[in-house]
C-alpha cells in the first residue's frame, strides 16, 4: 500500500472517530429536553410568587415513543406547552402549581403516596375541593403523582374518576380537551440554589418491569428536575 493511501486511510479513520465522538456528545449529552424558565425577572429570596402550569397526558404525539405517558410544562412567556420535565424557579419563593390531569387512574404500588405532604397546608385542591389523602386502591382516584423527595413534597394528581371518562381520554398531546381534573397546590422553594429531582410514583411505564421503566426512567416524560436558582 502506497504512502498516500495509508495516510489517507489514517485521516479517514481519525475523522470517523471524531465524528462519532461529536455525535455522541451532541446527541446524548447536549440533546436533553429544554428547561422552562419561571425564574426570569423574578428575584430570588424576595418572597415572590411564581405560577407553574403542567399537564400529564395518557400518551404523547410529539416523541418517538408516542405511547409513553408524559408530562408537559407550559411556557410562562408563550403559553405554549413544552414537552419537557425540566423547569427553573427562583429560590425562596412561593410556587403555585396547577396540574391538568388528563390521564386515567392506576393504583399506586404503595398507597402511602396517596397522602399529600410538603404543600402549603398539606393539601391540594382537586377541582377546587381541598384534599389531603387520595385512596388509589378503593377509588379510581390517582392518575400520577408529582413528588420531589428533596423537599418532602408529594402530591397525588387526581384522575378522571368514572369508567366512561377513563375510556375516553384525550387522544392527542398536548391535551386541550377531554376529561380531566384540575389540581392546584402551593409550596415554597428552598432558599439555597440547587437541583431537585422529581418523579411520578404511579407505575405508569406500561410494559416495563413493575411499570417503572420507559417513561418513568426518562427525563422529559415522567421524571425531571426542578432547578432552584438564586
Amino acid at each position: 500500500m502506497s504512502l498516500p493511501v495509508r495516510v489517507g486511510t489514517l485521516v479517514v479513520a481519525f475523522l470517523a472517530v471524531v465524528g462519532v465522538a461529536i455525535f455522541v456528545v451532541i446527541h446524548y449529552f447536549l440533546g436533553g429536553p429544554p428547561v422552562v424558565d419561571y425564574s426570569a425577572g423574578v428575584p430570588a429570596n424576595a418572597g415572590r410568587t411564581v405560577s407553574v402550569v403542567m399537564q400529564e397526558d395518557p400518551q404523547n404525539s410529539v416523541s418517538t415513543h408516542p405511547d409513553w405517558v408524559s408530562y408537559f410544562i407550559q411556557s410562562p412567556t408563550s403559553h405554549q406547552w413544552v414537552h419537557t420535565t425540566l423547569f427553573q424557579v427562583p429560590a425562596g419563593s412561593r410556587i403555585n402549581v396547577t396540574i391538568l390531569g388528563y390521564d386515567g387512574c392506576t393504583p399506586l404500588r404503595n398507597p402511602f403516596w396517596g397522602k399529600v405532604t410538603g404543600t402549603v397546608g398539606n393539601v391540594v385542591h382537586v377541582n377546587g375541593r381541598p384534599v389531603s389523602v387520595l385512596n388509589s386502591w378503593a377509588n379510581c382516584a390517582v392518575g400520577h403523582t408529582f413528588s420531589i423527595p428533596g423537599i418532602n413534597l408529594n402530591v397525588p394528581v387526581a384522575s378522571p374518576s368514572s369508567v366512561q371518562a377513563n375510556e375516553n381520554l384525550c387522544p392527542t398531546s398536548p391535551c386541550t380537551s377531554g376529561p380531566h381534573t384540575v389540581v392546584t397546590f402551593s409550596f415554597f422553594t428552598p432558599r439555597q440554589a440547587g437541583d431537585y429531582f422529581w418523579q411520578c410514583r404511579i407505575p405508569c411505564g406500561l410494559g416495563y418491569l413493575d411499570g417503572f421503566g420507559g417513561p418513568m426512567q426518562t427525563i422529559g416524560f415522567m421524571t425531571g428536575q426542578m432547578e432552584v436558582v438564586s
Partner: protein
Amino acid sequence: MATTGDTAAPAAGRREPSHGWRLFAIWLVIALAADLVIWFVWKPHLPPGTLSTSAADQQFDLAVLSVIAAPVMIFVLVYFSYAVIVWRHREGDDEDGPAQFGHTGIQATWIIGTAVIVLSLFVFGTYELISPAGAGAGEGPAPIWTPGGKTLQVQVIAQQWRFTYRYPQFGGFETTQLVLPEGQWVQFNVTSIDVIHSFWAYQLGVKADANPGVNNVAFTKPTHAGSITVRCAELCGLWHGAMFDYGRVMSPANFLAWAAGTRVQLASVTKILPPYATTYDPTEIATLGKVNVKLGLTGAGGGYYPPQDPSQP
C-alpha cells in the same frame, strides 16, 4: 563486597553486624508505635462509628485487622529499606553476593507465622460476622442469630427511589422518617415493592438487601443519640444516587412521644394502607374499588402494551 584479595582483606577483617537482630529491633519499635497509634488515635475515628452495637463491633474489627496487618506491612517495608540502604551496591564492589541456601528455621517460622495469623483471623472474622445478632447484616427471613427478648420492629420498604418505614407495634403507621430509641434492640424487616434495593444505615453498621417478596431481617442496638444516613446500596434505576434520607436515634421517652404523635398525624393514610405483612405484592390488591375493577385494573403491576403497539419492551 570485594572482588580481589587486596580489597577483600579489610572487609574480611571487619565483623559483620547481626542484621537479623537489627531488623527485628527496628521493626519492633516502628510496629509497636504504629499499633499504639492505630488503637488509641485512629480507632475512635474509624468508620462506621459507635452509634450502635453493630457499628462499634465493625469499628473494633477494623482496628484489630489494622493492628495485625500493620506489623506485617511494616516488616516488608523495613526489610526493603534496610536492604536498599545496607546491602546496596558500593563503588568498586563487583563481586557476586554469597550463595543463599534454604534455612529451615526461617521457613518454618514464616509458614507457621502466616498460618497462625490467617487462621486466627478466619476464626475471629467468622465469629464477628455473626456476633452479636448477625452483626447488622441481613439474615434472610428466618434469622439464626437473634438478640432474644423484645425488639422494636421496624419495617423498611424500599421503592424507587425512597425508603419508607413502618412501625407495626405502633398501629402500623408508615413514614419517611427513620427514628429509633437508644438502648433497645431493633429488628429491621427489609423488603421492596419493586426492584432490588439495599438498605444501608451507615452509622448503625446495618446493611441488608431489599428484595421484592422477601423479608430480610437485620438486628442492631443503637447505643446513644445521633443521626443516621440511609442510602440505597444497590443500583436501582435513574435516581438511585438520590435515594437517601436521614434518620435519628433519640432517648426512649422522646421516641415514644414521636411515635405517638406521628401515629395520630398519619392516621388518615394508615387506614388505607394494606394490613401489616412482612412482604407485599402490589400486583394483587384484594381491596380494589369497583371502578378500578371495571377498568380491568388488577393491581399496580405496570401491565403490558397490547400486541399491536409499536413500542414493545
